[in-house]
């Protein structure tokens, strides 16, 4: 479920932590971070799909899967 828009890091885990550790934490870096100024003539979604996704351009599309649905970490 995590595509290449996601980054992961391993937080410090203490032997004295009270709860079972989450060894990997993740955050998303949306694609706008890599487009300082949008170039002309980018590929486009079909119009009905663009309306559904919220953007005309696949380069700007950021899916966000619910983290609640996943089991474990």
């Amino acid at each position, binding site marked *: 479920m995590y595509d290449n828009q996601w980054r992961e890091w391993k937080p410090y885990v203490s032997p004295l932590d009270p709860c079972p550790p989450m060894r990997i934490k993740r*955050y998303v870096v949306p694609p706008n971070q*890599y487009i300082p100024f949008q170039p002309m003539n980018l590929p486009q979604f079909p119009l009905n799909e663009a309306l559904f996704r919220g953007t005309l351009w696949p380069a700007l599309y950021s899916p966000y899967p619910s983290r609640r649905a996943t089991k474990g970490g």
Partner: protein
Amino acid sequence: MWVYEKKLQYPVRVSKCDPRMAKYLIEQYGGADGELSAALRYLNQRYSIPDKVIGLLTDIGTEELAHLEMIATMVYKLTKDATPEQLEAAGLGAHFVNHDNALFYENAGGVPWTATYIQAKGDPIADLYEDIAAEEKARATYQWLIDFTDDVDIQDSLRFLREREIVHSLRFREAVEILKADREQKKVY
């Protein structure tokens, strides 16, 4: 924990008796974009941000406390010898009634500092963008404060503080780049 050095980060000299300026400087003491907000914002975000940038937040948050001391020193010097009449003439009558000559975490309009000035969204990109915006807003405030006094010694200290905002903004933007890294790294789950 912290180690305290009993000196200011940069000298603060006030050469003009101008309690009026204290009322405006207090914006950087207890205002939304002031040094208290900055320090608390960064030092609080440290806990949940990826470990590559925790040290940066510690360092800058700590430096903001040093800036807070500099602003406090300016305000103190400008108000410590002012009579109630002088404070009232400087627009600090309401402050005097509430606080005497004490400093208080409030903005230039007398509104008390509130935790709603800072955010902790938990999303590293969102948090760092708030930090970048905060630095630019603080830089602007220092500009307007420099515009508002003709005391060249206060201007000198304020220019140092303004320059630090510029450097901090760049460091936070570098932190964003660090968190954006390994873009091409394909992961299989």
